[in-house]
């Protein structure tokens, strides 16, 4: 059975290394500041005992005031998982750091989020639309699209 690590415990470990990274913890997830996303992700991937070597999925949700990005991380070695969230504000050109350098599996998913949600990922090797064609107007999964 995959253990879901308590967000509080994970947040404590993150805070010891990056004091300002954690904004809050909920019952299900750790919410972190998007500036620290790459650092925290690398920390979670490499710290012995955590070793989140597998990125299950990334997705984004549009809450009008902000976009929430959801990173479900899994460790195949320890069979545990944690939900990492971050927020980005603004509808013009929201940007968060890309995690492709850590997990190649993020490549297509980040492009998909860019395509459908309009969030850019800084440091992505190929930040282009993926399912819609170049020149398509708008980002359909946004709540104000239609």
């Amino acid at each position: 059975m995959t253990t879901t690590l308590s967000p509080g415990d994970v947040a404590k470990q993150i805070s010891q290394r990056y004091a300002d990274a954690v904004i809050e913890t909920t019952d299900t997830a750790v919410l972190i500041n998007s500036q620290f996303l790459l650092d925290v992700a690398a920390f979670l991937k490499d710290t012995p005992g955590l070793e989140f070597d597998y990125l299950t999925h990334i997705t984004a949700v549009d809450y009008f005031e902000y976009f929430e990005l959801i990173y479900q991380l899994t460790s195949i070695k320890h069979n545990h998982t944690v939900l990492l969230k971050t927020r980005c504000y603004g509808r013009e050109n929201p940007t968060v750091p890309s995690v492709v350098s850590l997990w190649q599996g993020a490549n297509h998913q980040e492009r998909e989020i860019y395509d459908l949600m309009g969030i850019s990922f800084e440091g992505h090797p190929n930040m282009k639309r993926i399912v819609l064609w170049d020149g398509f107007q708008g980002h359909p999964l946004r709540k104000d699209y239609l």
Partner: protein
Amino acid sequence: MALKTEPFVLNLGPLHPSTHGVFRMRLTLDGEVVINVEPVFGYLHRGIEKLAEQRTYTGVIPLTDRLDYVSSMSNNFGYVLAVEKLARISVPERAEYIRVIMAELQRIASHLVGIGSFCNEVGAYFTPFLYMWREREKIVDLFEMASGQRLLYNYMRVGGVSQDVPEEFIPALRRFLKQMPSYINEYERLLKENEILLARAKGVGILPKEVAINISASGPLLRGSGVKWDIRKADPYSIYDRFEFDIPTGSVGDCYDRYRVRVEEMKQSLRIIEQAVEQIPSGAVRSDVPHLIRPPVGEAYARIEAPTGELGFYLVSDNSIAPYRCHIRAPSLMNLTALREMMVGWKIQDAIIAFGSINITMGEVDR
């Protein structure tokens, strides 16, 4: 004097017999050797995630059929699990067993198509494929008995399944269970030691273990690379913890290993179905669920081991009758990240085999 050469860009697809639907690859070739590959998606994009936001929770089920359209039952299964987790709905025992039987039958059917089309690419053009289509037909007949449909079943519901299986289903299933092992032996005689298959698939398109994990691969692609990771064992859902079965894995991570994993998984699926048929209780197949489901505000992620890999549904509810957000974690999309690793440095005919061994369905990649 040395001849001046330059790389050549070849557009493979979107309409090509080995692209399993409408998939395009832009291959950069140096002579016959692939030096770069760029996948191009989107020819089958229907905006299912957006459409789901405008439908009721039950109304999304037919959309999920159209994800991986050769394994609709599994897609239904993943989705209803997510809604049940979100709305905290329980499922009657009999329905759990029916679901497991259907999902495992679907795995066999999907692997048959996967192996069959893989053989096409290897050069055994359509002979093995039609053998496998013959057995898939028997599974489709079983599905038709239960759901009335032959491709897009729309059979599972939140809180159970749409209707109980008819009386003749279990005897027919038992007959199938009796026949199927001898059919699998037939494929083994035909293919396992087949010189052409060995020559073309062994050692080709190797995906190392670490890379497989790093690219979020799942399903036979991950297990073929030697990672013992199967959601049915790693994170048991439904009633999978009640059955005995093994997780077959490969050792090298080449195309042949992935083919072997699929064959062995079919045998394991038969084992699960045999146990389920013995244990299945009688009773209701659907719990009392309101027509319009309004889950409490929150989020839920449920995942299953679909034939192609980890299929997950991430749902966000705002306490209305439609999902606020329905994200589908499509295994094929992640598995396609492996293309570069598996293709670059190989000749173009090997690249086709490497691609075929992933066994993707475009309906799921593009959504």
